[in-house]
């Protein structure tokens, strides 16, 4: 490559970075003294698959408990509101029938007197 040759000719491939004298010998000795013994390694970690299984099982149990609590609350609320609405309907049933009749008579423009006559066959 032409451009690569340009750099090689101009700068070469020498190493301008120096190290303190005896650095690599000291480095090796220091490093080797720091390395732990293979037998003295910390206890083996729990295998990933096992930890993942237990974590998944915990999440599944938590999700199941939450779902059951939610559904239980939901059904209780539905049952309670159904009971309340049924009782309320019964209480308001008679009242609403009376209001309906009054409205109907008002719209029919029939007076109470005419109705009384009609009911007593005097009409």
């Amino acid at each position: 490559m032409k451009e690569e040759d340009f750099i090689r000719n101009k700068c070469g491939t020498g190493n301008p970075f120096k190290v303190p004298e005896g650095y690599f010998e000291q480095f090796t000795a220091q490093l080797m003294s720091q390395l732990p013994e293979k037998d003295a390694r910390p206890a083996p970690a729990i295998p990933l698959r096992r930890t993942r299984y237990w974590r998944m099982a915990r999440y599944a149990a938590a999700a199941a408990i939450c779902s059951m609590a939610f559904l239980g609350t939901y059904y209780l609320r539905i049952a309670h509101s159904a009971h309340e609405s049924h009782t309320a309907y019964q209480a308001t049933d008679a009242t609403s029938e009376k209001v309906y009749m009054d409205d109907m008579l008002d719209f029919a423009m029939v007076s109470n007197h005419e109705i009384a006559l009609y009911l007593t066959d005097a009409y």
Partner: protein
Amino acid sequence: MKSTEENSLMLRLNQPEQQRQAFEELVNLYGPQLYRQIRRMVYDHDDTNDILQNTFIKAWNNLDTFRGDARLSSWLYRIATNETLNFLQRRKDITPLEDAPSALAAQLTADEYFDGDETELLLQQAIASLPEKQRLVFQLKYYEEMKYEDMSQVLDTSVGALKASYHHAVRKICDFFNSRD
């Protein structure tokens, strides 16, 4: 290193009674070249020393996981590269460099372990102006003369992408010099 010698070292690394001594030979064998590669990325000797130490400690701790699919040297280069990139990322987070080439020139001029002339200083400034991946590729190819196939294992990048990266790096360095002439 010839693959037969590397295989012999690997065999001894797998034997518990010879493992420690074989690892010491490994440190002596690859220490200097890994040092050069790290130093060209981080520039400071003390930082390089720390990264090199971490590299070999990680290699020792993970020796059992090395299956021999890649070359031993590629595996070590890969650990060193990851350690270096992590270090650079941490340093960037702490002190972001606004003008890397100028800051580097000042740093290298004051560095007692930098022994380069003005042209060398310019080259280092030009390399410092490259993106990290291009810097890595350039250093491994230009200085270490690493084959693209080996580099592909170290950097986990395709050979084609590495060639393109090196080509861009060389062109940018030339442009850097031309702009200074």
